């Protein structure tokens, strides 16, 4: 009989992901690239916001968008029409992107061929908050049609974000209300940048671009 031994490990389960995320952040920084992580619920308007961003940025910047979705390439195709290079990651059943999934895509391209990288995370207000993908800024999008209490119910993802986007503000006053969401997002984390947008009309998109530190 071979002996059994207890090995004391004491290592964080997320360690490998987080180390890779740090590495991605370092590489992006050293190459002067911007990398944003856009999170939010299903249907909040992440893709439509990215279409607006791509339309405004593509004439000046080379934009690379990584779309995380459980299946299909619908979102990546929509954004590609606005002039960005896009790639779709199908996570299968996975409810979040990870540093490894991002690195796999970066390995297939030359980072120097692009200026701005944006990941559209899988629609979900819970799991993506726990998985660092190496972005410099984390953005969470909610829309006013999700109800007034969506920030109150999911504060963790906002705590893990620097920017909160309250989208679909074209519907403000039409049975929906942006006030409570904007107030809650500002209250839940000091220094939070709250931006009211309508990805339909383009409201707030320029403010978002400025907040991301991009010159138009």
């Amino acid at each position: 009989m071979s002996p059994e031994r207890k090995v004391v490990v004491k290592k964080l389960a997320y360690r490998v992901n987080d180390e890779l995320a740090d590495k991605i952040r370092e590489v992006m920084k050293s190459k002067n690239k911007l990398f944003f992580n856009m999170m939010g619920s299903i249907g909040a308007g992440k893709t439509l916001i990215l279409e607006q961003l791509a339309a405004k940025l593509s004439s000046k910047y080379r934009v690379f968008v990584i779309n995380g979705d459980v299946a299909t390439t619908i979102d990546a195709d929509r954004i590609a029409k606005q002039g960005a290079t896009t790639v779709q990651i199908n996570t299968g059943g996975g409810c979040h992107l990870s540093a490894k999934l991002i690195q796999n895509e970066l390995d297939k391209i030359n980072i120097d061929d692009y200026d701005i990288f944006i990941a559209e995370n899988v629609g979900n207000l819970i799991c993506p908050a726990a998985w660092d993908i190496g972005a410099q800024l984390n953005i969470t999008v909610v829309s006013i049609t999700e109800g007034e209490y969506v920030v109150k119910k999911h504060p963790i993802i906002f705590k893990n974000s620097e920017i909160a986007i309250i989208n679909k503000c074209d519907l403000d006053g039409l049975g929906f209300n942006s006030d409570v969401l904007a107030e809650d997002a500002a209250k839940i984390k000091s220094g939070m940048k709250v931006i009211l947008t309508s990805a339909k009309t383009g409201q707030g998109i320029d403010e978002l671009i400025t907040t991301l530190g991009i010159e138009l």
Partner: protein
Amino acid sequence: MHEYSVASAIVDQVKAIVEEHKATQVKKIIVSASPYDVIIPELLIEAYGIITDDLDKFKGSTLEMQNSKAEITCLECDYKGEPAEEGDPEFAYNFICPKCESRDTHINMKNLTIETVDLVIPDN
């Protein structure tokens, strides 16, 4: 529902430990998680079973979960430790700092730790 990815992350790290110790078999893995780690133990254990099903060195091994304490960091006063019991009356999953009563705290939800691994290591 990210237990599958979490279980994979655990198995990947344990595989490296098995290599390092030239072990022939994994018997038991003990992991600890805090109450706010958004991990459902039953699902994690189920995912572990699925992932290790075709891994010879993990045959018959078990994954055990232990509880660790919740930990917040206060962004106002730098307090690090257990949150005040009542939580934040306004926000779900948010906590008030027991030292300065600020709501500007961060709950660490990534405490999940591989504590120990029981291995069979042949002598020689």
